[in-house]
Structure formats: C-alpha cells, structure tokens
C-alpha cells in the first residue's frame, strides 16, 4: 500500500515546497492524538519532500542538467516523460515514519511527484503509477501554466487519486483499463 502521495516543487536555490500532499489513512495508536498528530503528519511529509528534492538535485547534477529547468513555452504542450529523471530511496525507521518506508519519485520540469510506500511494495508498479499520475495531474491542474492552481484545486487532484490510487491501493491497469479510467474522468491524455 501507498502511505502518502506528495507533489512538490524541489526548488534549486529556493527551498522545496509541498504543493499538495495526501495521506491514505492514519495508523491507529501510532503516536500522539489531537493536533499534534496533524502536526506530525505535516512534518513527516515535509521531511519526505526535502529528501526527494535533495535526491532530485543530486541526480540532475550527475546527469549534467541544470537544476531549475525551464517550463515549456506553451502550457498545453505534451510533456515527454521519456527522460524524466526519477529514483527510489529508503527512509529508516524513526526517520521520519515509525517504520521503514520506500520512496519512489519522479521529476518533471520544475516539479516532483513522490509515493511513500510500505516496505516490500512492488516498486515497478509504483513507478508505473507515478508515470500515469504525473501527466494527468499536470493536465488537469494546469500545473505548467502560470498561477498556483494546484493549491486551489484539491478536488481535481483527489479525483485523479481516487481513480488511479484509491485509498493508496496501486492498480494493475493495462492500457485499455487506463483508457477507460480517462473516459470516466473526462480526460484527454495524449498517447
């Protein structure tokens, strides 16, 4: 299962920002209740985001790319995920989640998408899921255009996650099933 999904702006010189984050359920008895639980959740996600940003910047450097890539000129230009850098790393128990987690991430232009997975999760499927979420989020949140649309449209992000990652459950969807999902969502994804 996926514990959380994070959409962030890794920054470069600027500090990284979490643009949207969604956790899938809170493990009972895992810590303090009340507002501290919420605070803890937010801070855990920020730690994940920072680690993703750091790995992203290091990978961009080793690939010889500039750390803050330019946005394309036209917001509707299809974004190629062919060479999108990505990676996977582990976070130890206690730092920041009580148990070990594996983070799978993908970077597209000036944004990064990350899945926080339970250990022993199918990482190949996680990568596929991310590669499907990224262009659809970019499209429906108009993330490439000006304006901080994503912050004001959590319903669009939630709607996508409810189909492609319902309750944190990754789905083995072949291309035809994916087309069916796109039809249900009313999305026109370039193929």
């Amino acid at each position: 299962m996926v514990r959380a999904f994070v959409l962030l702006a890794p920054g470069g010189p600027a500090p990284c920002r979490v643009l949207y984050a969604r956790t899938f359920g809170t493990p009972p008895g895992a810590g303090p209740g009340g507002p501290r639980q919420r605070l803890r959740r937010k801070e855990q996600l920020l730690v994940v985001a920072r680690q993703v940003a750091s790995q992203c910047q290091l990978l961009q450097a080793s690939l010889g790319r500039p750390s803050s890539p330019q946005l394309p000129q036209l917001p509707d230009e299809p974004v190629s995920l062919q060479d999108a850098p990505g990676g996977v790393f582990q976070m130890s128990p206690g730092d920041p989640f009580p148990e070990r987690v594996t983070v799978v991430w993908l970077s597209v232009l000036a944004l990064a998408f990350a899945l926080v997975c339970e250990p022993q999760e199918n990482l190949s499927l996680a990568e596929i899921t991310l590669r499907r979420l990224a262009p659809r989020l970019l499209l429906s949140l108009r993330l490439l255009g000006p304006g901080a649309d994503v912050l004001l449209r959590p319903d669009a992000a939630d709607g996508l996650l409810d189909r492609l990652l319902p309750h944190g459950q990754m789905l083995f969807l072949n291309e035809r099933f994916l087309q069916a999902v796109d039809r249900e969502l009313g999305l026109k994804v370039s193929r």
Partner: protein
Amino acid sequence: GPEAVDGLQRLHLSVAATKYPRKLDGKFVEQLQTVLCSPKSPEQIQVLCAAILREMSPCNDLVLSCDEIQDTKLLSLVSSVLLAQGSRGEVAAVGQRVVQGLERRLPEGQSARFLLPVLANVISLSPGSLTEEQTNVVSKKLADWLRYASIQQGMAQPSGGFFSSPRTKQPAPITEVDGAVATDFFTVLSVAQHYTQDQWLNVQAFSMLRNWLLCYGGKEQSPMDSSEGNSGTPLVPVPATPGRLLPPRERLRDKAFAYCQRLVEQSTRRPLKKEDGDLQKACLIEAVTIMDIICKQDSSYVCRAVSCLKILHSRICGDATYARALLPIAQLFLNHSKQAAVDSDAIYKHLFSDIPALLFHNPSLAFEFVQFCKDNSQLFTDSSSIFRQSFPNLFKFLAWNSPALISEFVDLLPFLLDPGTATEIFHLLLDLPCLTAALDIQLRAAALPVSEKAGADPAGKPATCLEAFHHPLYRSMFQYLLRSRAAPEDAPDSLVPLRQLLGSLAGSPRVVQCAETVPVLLELFFRVVAEFADGSLINQLVVLLLQRSDQLYDIPAFKEDVVLGSNLAMLCGLRPALVVELSTEILEFSGAVSNIQSKEAIFTHMAWAVGEFLSVSHDKRCTVEQITRFFETLEAVLFEITQLRPQASTPSCAPRAISVLMATLTKLAARSQDLIPRVSMFLSKMRTFVQSPAVTSVYCEEDLEEILIRATELMNLLKMPSVAQFVFTPPVASTRFQKEVNDSLPLALRMVTQLLEPAAGSMPV
C-alpha cells in the same frame, strides 16, 4: 453553485497551508459533514468537504458514520475521512461496513469496485479488524472474482437517447496483450474495448491479493487477530469433505496460484502497445512474489512453483528488460529450493556475476538488488559463496548511484567484511570514485559504433580515456578495476597510471558524489575491522595505509576528507607492538621530509604513535638502538622544518606537526636518557625559531606562542628525568583510571611547569 466551490477551495487552502491547528467552528464542521453525506450535493462539493475534513484530522467534532450510506462511491469518500482519524474503533467500524457491503447484494447501479480499496486500506492500517467469518466471506469472493470474471468484452455505455439502436452487437471475446484471442480466464493482462463490472473486480482483487494473503492467508490465526478483542468467532477448522468446496482460505490459495501461473505465461508475450510491456513486468514480479507467499503458507505448492519458474527463468535470463524479475525468482528459490531438491546455483551465479556488471546504471534495479542482499544477509556469511565473492560487482551499484544507495551500503558493508576480504575492500573503497570514472568510460565505449571500437595505435599512447579503454597499456588495469569477483591475487602492481589517466574525469558530478560517500564507508570499515582483525591483518592495513596515502584519486577535497590519519592511530592503539614490527616501513615513511607536507595528517598521527608506543612496556623487543634510530630520523625532520632561514625547498607544515614532533622526541628521550641533552638543546633553540623574522611571516602569532609554550613545558619536564619517564611511559593503560592518566597528559605538563616556575602566568621572555 460555483461560489460554493470557490469558497470551499479557499477554505481547504487556508486549513492545509499551515501545520499548526486551525480551529473551525463546531457547527460549521457539522455542516460540512451533513453536506458531505447529503445525496443532493454535487460530487465536487462532496469531494471538497471530505478533503477539508481529512485535512483537519484528527477531528473531535466528527459525527460521521458509514452505517447508513448505501452509495458505494460516497461510502469510499466518507471512509477516507474516518480512516484518517487514527482510531482503531473507526477503522474496525469501516471494515465491518465494507464487508457487509460486499456480502449483500448491492442496490441497483452500485458497484463493489469502490469498496475493495477501502478494505485494503483497513487491513493495512489495522490487520486484526476482521473476524474469521468475515475474512472467509471476503476470501471466497476474491477467489470467485479472480477466477470467474467474464471472458467477453463489456459493452460501451449506451449514449442514450430515444434513437439508439435496439439491436446491440454481439460481445467480442477478450484478447491477450499481443492481440491473440484469449483461451483462458480473465486477468489484469486481458484486453477489451470496454470492461464489465466483474472484470473491474478482477483487477481490484488481484491488486490487493498480496497484502490479503500476507494478512489472512496463513493456516493459523495470526496472534493479532485474536488480540483485537472483536466479536470474533472461535476458530473452527472446516474439513474438506469430498464433493464439497475447499475451505475459503485454501480455495483462494488455489485460485490465486492458478492466476499467477497464467500471468507468468502472459507476461512474455510481445505486447501491441509498448506501455503494456512495463505492466507485464510489474505483473510478473507480483505473480512470483505471491507464489512465494503461497509456498510459505502451503508447501505443497513448492514443486509446481519451482518447475514453472525454472522455465520462466530460462526464457527471460537473457533479456535485460526482465532483469528486475530475476530477484523475486531468486528469492523464491532461496526460500524453497532445498525442499524441492533443486539445484539453483546457476540462477544465483547469473544474478550476481552478470547482472550488476550489465545494469549498474539502472537506479531501480540497483536499489532492489541491494535490498535483496540486505534481506538475505545471511548468505554473505559463507566466505566462499558466490554472494560474498561478488562484492566488487555490488560496489558498482554504489559507485554509480551514490546518493541513493549510500545508506543501504552502510547497512550492507559489515556483512561483506572478513579477514579474507578486508584488504581488497580497503583498496576498493579508496578507489571507488575511480570505479565510477571507469564505469562511465565502459558505458561510453559500449555505445560507440563498431568501427570506432577498433582502437587506436597500440604502439602509441592513447589520446583520450576512451581510447585507453582497449589500449594494451591500460586494458588489464581497467579489467581489474571492473572485475566481477574478488581477486586478491590478480591485483596489478599498481593502478597509478590508470588513476592518472582518469584524472580528467575527476571533476565530473557523478565521480564527486561518489567521492563524498567514501569517508563514511572508511570510518565504518575501520570500526568493523577493528573488531575481528588479528595482528597480521592490522600490520597489513597499516602498511597499506602508509602506501596508499599518496596513491589517491586526485579529486579536490577527497584527499582531505579521507581521514586515514586518525584510523592509523586507532590501529596502532589496538596493537602497539606494530610500531616495533613495522619499524622499517615506519622509519622510511617518517624519514621522508616531503611527507610532512603532502601527507601531513598521517605523518602527524604516525609521529604521535611512535612517541606513544615505542617502548619496552608495549613490546619487550624494543631496544635502545631502535629508540635511537627513530629519534635520529625524527630529529632530522624536525631540524629540517625549523630552520631559521627556510629555503624554497623547505616544506611548510602546520604548527601542530611541529608540536607533535617535539613531544615525540621528548618522550623517546625520557626512555633513553642519553638523548636528553640533545632534545633539551633543540628545544631551547625553539625560542630563536619562533622569533626569527622569516618564520613569523609564515605562521601566525598564536601558533608560534603555542609552540613556544609547548617547547618550554617539555624542556622543564626533562629537567626531572624520572618524572618525565613516569609521565611519558606509564604502564600500559589497561584500566580506565590509567587511561585517564594518559589523557590528562597536557594537564600534567602544565602542572609540572607551574611547579618549576611559580611565577608562570606571565609570558616567558
């Protein structure tokens, strides 16, 4: 209307934007919940209300309950809020409601499709939430959905309207990903233009199958089930009588295994759509993993699994795109092949010898491979095994993907170290950035068109690193660095020419990132080795340390960060006798004046170690001649660097080196008192040294002051030879008290000085 949507969106932003609690009016929160559950609310508004409520979790004012909700989509939405509360009771309640929904026939138009992910989330958050009876109900349904989904394509949703054609087309059969008509049951790799509800359930069921089996697939009740305190029915085993269905658990296992076997067959077909190829591989990995779980839960499946996977392995082992699937296959064999009496060595050999060398540059494979090693660390304890002998291959993953894998290697390294591998790994760690550069060249050389691979003129010198790759001068060095297996005897005499050649790549980001991981690993290396190393290994490492100290890859900051000096001191402390045993090597190293400049940290630590440990109390073989020889060597060096008029050729060095040399000479003199006059005279000249104009321009005032104070203290100590002897050669510190005495040496020096010069406190003139 749209203003409501806008308002809710802004509200969500203001609640989500801060990590500190935002208080929303209790009545308003109640309203949010009412709107969420009201059938009249448009979907977008419901989603936004749920998002706000989740964002605020845990929420005290929650009165939401899923009991009355019939709409499965809404139930899923409300569950997402309830499951975010972190309350075991809420999770259990959601679990009960969902199982109830799955048990009964759903109202018209509702689909169970939206309920299964909720269930998956429930069991992941709180595995004991369901009773035995409930898990049986679900297991039975899962088995049905996996095995009996329709094998005909669904119909397109009718576009509606009065004029739609009354005659519908005959439904077509489902196909495989390569276009062939399917001849067996429906799976996630089945293709159709439109899908039916039960086909969706097939996909959902498989997607959650692994976790379900892990949680509820075992033969016995897991301890967690009974501790939950739910109204669980006591365990009553259901015997399988002939003519009757298997019990639900066994039946699910049977259907699941068949499903996985079918996936294995489907996953090597050539897909019409390229993207389906990625899913095939993910399905394959999942299928093998589930087979492994099933075999653990019921060993009667092992034979079938092993024979199926042997065939699969021979089909995919030559295809690099299937490499990631080799890991779960190997894991299954590791877990069960003994039982199946099958020889799986060929599988492990291929995995460890070939795959890392080919695919080190694939970050996902690299990560999963290292995880595999960590999960099976017991394999590495056998020093002759293929696993342990392949450590050079494993380090390729780290050399190429340093930032992502360094923390994994910190966990893995201790398992690779033993007396047989220690020295080879020591060299490997120091050359790790070199390995990165060599791998880069290997990749680029492989990408060259064949015509260019012919290589340059073997008689001449290669112009570029790429040319050097095949050049006879360098080929064997490259081969050694890029070897797949441990080969201590094959080490070339020196890799110095190769390191120099690769110097042009020393600034590349990947190489620099790798270099940054080496200090951490070296520290760990010495810490682990110190625990098992015997005398001969320690001696070997000290000699290598001294040798390698100037044979490091020329990356800025790499030489400073690699702290060999303190580890040298640590090894000497572990085995003081080595100072006597390795006196030849140490004298040679300490006598070379250039070392004090180019390898200052190591030189200083070495000099300190000589002062500490060259004494009869540490090794009975220590003779007066030896002490004198060391004394004269170090005295010559100190003399050279403290000339009053330094020439251009005089090496400059940190003041600390001067202090340590002075202290060492004093210590040696305390043990062989004939030397005392020589030292005292030398120390008395230090005043002139620190005041000489040529020197004051090189060193700063505080440093010179420190040197002078030290020299004075040491001189004063030598005026009382027996005290000096005691202070500098205490009995070997075997108790904590004695160790503390050693550590308080500077304090002791200061005390003695004050005794001799009561008016100290004013600067000595």
